[in-house]
């Protein structure tokens, strides 16, 4: 079974893709059929993924590779391939599972949308591309699917295309990620130029295997950093994080699927996938490239956590939280905790999807209201949503023991504490934990507690098709922690290719207490500060300048707008200007010179040459007139002329002899 699945891994992305294409060819009316196709595709993909996962479990360091020739150019062949290893298998399961939940949720959330079918087509397409990223055994194939993921994200963010803000956000997302992708692209071609292959694993000849890595030599750092650019773009790391909050213009299921659970995690996945390149030549687990990864992650995590404190849009808060968590994952990868990072990724996938879907449910219930200041007291109106949301919130904040997020976060903190370069990231991440708990508490209080404010007068619980996914995801978030505990770090060891051992003793760790304390501080502070907060944020009251700074996202968007974008627009206008007036001007000047030359010669021809001839004629005629006047034009004159002519001939004759 497992062999069959590994060999037919391509079926996993293909099924959603086929579903997507099939849906696109349907008419608008066939809504149920469209949704059915999408969900069927997703279910099948989930089953296959589970099969693949199941096949991968028994063997530690499982790795099934299936390579093939894409096309040949010159005498060379460009090869692509699929790969199934622990990393891919867990990602497959997580993605297909979360996707399925979100698909089902969308049935309710998008029920009234006119382009219901198209939405599912896009979702399926996204799912296919994302699965492709996960199973790619070739940097090129990964890049291809990576870009397709970007396209899907673009389409879905701009799904409500009649909203100009959505279109703008979609454009911003695509272009910002593409900036990173260009780095990725350069890194990829550089890698290809060095190692001559883009396959990760190829029976010893792959780029991530010893021979391939050795051929990179000194370029490894640059290549790694360039590839990291791609990850920065996709995972919304500083300084390319600006697109992600804007991307919340898309429908909420999209935000849940793409901008929380899966796509944004692709950057982390990418770094994990090509980790051998990052860690090549590491001294005590540190390389230049990893150093960069760590600091980018730290900055991102802190900045976005701070900004999240001052946002009012329910989805934006979650978006910044996502950015922050992704930063955390990057830090983890950078300091060497690959497994920890991936585990957090998986856990984050579950609970962030849960949170987003919950927020979707809230928004849905409140008639598309997204401002938390207008919500409040929804606890009673939306009990299921409230409970599941609370689970998600606690998982995110890292409340220990029962929630997946806590274990993974703890693991990351542990990894940072061991980093040989500096302890600073560790402390900063601890601060991050506090901040996370703080802003989540703020959100909870604003949304679910207190009095009902303006909008949700007739707020209601969502239909069961939406609440069921919430509950499933909440359960998963809790259940997932079973395989994460230090007592039985099954997932950790599975990812590292080690047989897990059960050790109840290791459940009790100092870090766990530290986390508990920090989370408690965060939540406690939150409750203290935001209890009874009204329209005006308490924080804004105490430190308005700082609050405004954070509320406006540190004015980073404006900064980009005034510097990079302004420069680019100026360059565009300049190019156009130069084109019209300099380069074309030169051409026109050439033409004008030609014309002027024509005019000049024409004048010369008429005035100098031709009139010269005419003047000569006139002169000759004048002489003739003169002579004629003397002899009044008689026969004899002519006779005389003949005589003179005779004389002339004689003289000529004389001259001859």
């Amino acid at each position: 079974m497992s062999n069959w699945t590994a060999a037919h891994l391509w079926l996993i992305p293909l099924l959603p893709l086929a579903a997507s294409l099939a849906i696109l060819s349907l008419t608008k009316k066939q809504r149920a059929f469209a949704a059915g196709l999408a969900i069927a595709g997703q279910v099948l993909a989930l089953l296959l993924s589970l099969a693949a996962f199941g096949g991968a479990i028994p063997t530690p360091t499982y790795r099934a590779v299936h390579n093939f020739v894409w096309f040949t150019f010159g005498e060379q062949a460009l090869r692509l391939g699929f790969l199934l290893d622990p990393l891919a298998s867990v990602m497959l399961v997580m993605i297909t599972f979360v996707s399925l939940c979100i698909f089902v949720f969308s049935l309710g959330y998008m029920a009234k949308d006119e382009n219901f079918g198209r939405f599912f087509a896009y979702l399926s397409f996204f799912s296919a591309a994302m699965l492709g990223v996960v199973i790619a055994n070739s940097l090129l194939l990964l890049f291809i699917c990576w870009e397709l993921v970007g396209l899907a994200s673009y389409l879905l963010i701009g799904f409500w295309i009649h909203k100009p803000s959505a279109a703008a956000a979609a454009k911003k997302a695509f272009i910002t990620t593409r900036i990173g992708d260009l780095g990725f692209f350069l890194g990829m071609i550089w890698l290809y130029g060095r190692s001559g292959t883009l396959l990760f694993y190829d029976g010893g000849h792959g780029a991530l295997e010893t021979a391939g890595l050795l051929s990179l030599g000194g370029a490894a750092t640059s290549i790694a950093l360039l590839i990291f650019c791609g990850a920065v773009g996709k995972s919304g790391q500083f300084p390319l994080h600006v697109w992600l909050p804007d991307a919340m213009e898309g429908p909420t299921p999209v935000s849940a699927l793409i901008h929380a659970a899966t796509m944004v995690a692709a950057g982390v996945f990418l770094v994990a996938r090509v980790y051998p390149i990052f860690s090549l030549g590491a001294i005590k687990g540190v390389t230049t490239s990893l150093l960069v990864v760590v600091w980018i992650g730290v900055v991102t995590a802190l900045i976005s956590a701070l900004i999240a404190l001052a946002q009012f849009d329910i989805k934006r808060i979650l978006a910044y939280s996502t950015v922050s968590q992704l930063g955390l994952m990057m830090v983890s990868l950078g300091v060497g905790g690959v497994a920890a990072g991936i585990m957090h990724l998986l856990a984050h996938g579950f609970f962030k999807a849960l949170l987003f879907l919950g927020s979707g449910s809230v928004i849905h219930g409140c008639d598309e209201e997204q401002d938390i200041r207008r919500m409040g007291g929804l606890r009673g109106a939306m009990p299921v949503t409230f409970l599941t949301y609370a689970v998600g919130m606690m998982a995110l904040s890292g409340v220990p023991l029962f929630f997946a997020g806590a274990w993974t976060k703890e693991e990351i903190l542990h990894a940072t504490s061991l980093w040989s370069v500096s302890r600073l990231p560790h402390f900063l991440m601890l601060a991050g934990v506090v901040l996370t708990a703080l802003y989540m508490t703020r959100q909870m209080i604003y949304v679910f507690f207190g009095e009902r404010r303006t909008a949700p007068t007739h707020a209601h619980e969502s239909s069961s098709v939406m609440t069921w996914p919430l509950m499933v995801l909440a359960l998963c978030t809790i259940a997932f922690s079973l395989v994460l505990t230090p007592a039985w770090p099954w997932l950790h060891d599975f990812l590292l290719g080690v047989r897990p051992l059960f050790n109840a003793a290791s459940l009790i760790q100092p870090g766990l207490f530290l986390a508990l304390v920090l989370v408690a501080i965060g939540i406690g502070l939150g409750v203290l500060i935001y209890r009874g907060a009204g329209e005006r944020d308490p924080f804004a009251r105490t430190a308005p300048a700082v609050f405004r700074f954070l509320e406006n996202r540190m004015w980073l968007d404006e900064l980009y707008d005034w510097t990079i974008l302004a420069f680019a627009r100026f360059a565009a206008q300049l190019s156009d200007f130069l084109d019209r007036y300099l380069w074309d001007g030169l051409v026109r000047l050439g033409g004008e010179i030609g014309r002027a030359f024509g005019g000049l010669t024409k004048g010369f021809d008429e005035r100098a040459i031709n009139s010269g001839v005419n003047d000569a004629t006139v002169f000759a005629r004048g002489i003739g007139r003169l002579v004629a006047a003397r002899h009044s034009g008689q026969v004899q004159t002519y006779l005389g002329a003949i005589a003179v002519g005779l004389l002339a001939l004689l003289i000529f004759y004389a001259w001859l002899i």
Partner: protein
Amino acid sequence: MNSAAFIVIAILTLAAALAAATLRKLVHAALCFAAAFVGVAAFYFLLGAEFVGLIQVFVYVGAVAVLIVFTILLTRREVEEDRAFHWSGALVALAVFAGLAWAIFKSAGLSVTATAIPGLTVKQIGEMLMTDYIWPLQCIGLLLTAALVGALVLVMEEKR
């Protein structure tokens, strides 16, 4: 003998010609003209072209001179004298003469004397006219006829 005759004839002829060209009275000029042509005829005789000489006398002295005199008479009343004389013409003539003379003197092989030749009989001339020169002869005949008719037409009074 020949040389003497040549000199005499030359002087007479040229003198007559000069007179014909310069005399004011038309009639006198016409007479001198006739005399000059007699001189030319004499040259022909001297050169052994007797037939040509005779024709010269008949045609010019006999016909043309008479014609001229008749014309003078016909237009007599107003024009019997021509006083106008352009010295520029004389200059040109003199220059041409100088040029010609210079060319003649300059040319080598011209100072030959005549060798004896058998006389050119009229019979010979007639034969040639009727054989080799038959086409020119015919043309001349035509020309003369045309000239005759033309002259008549010109001179005829227009009928009113």
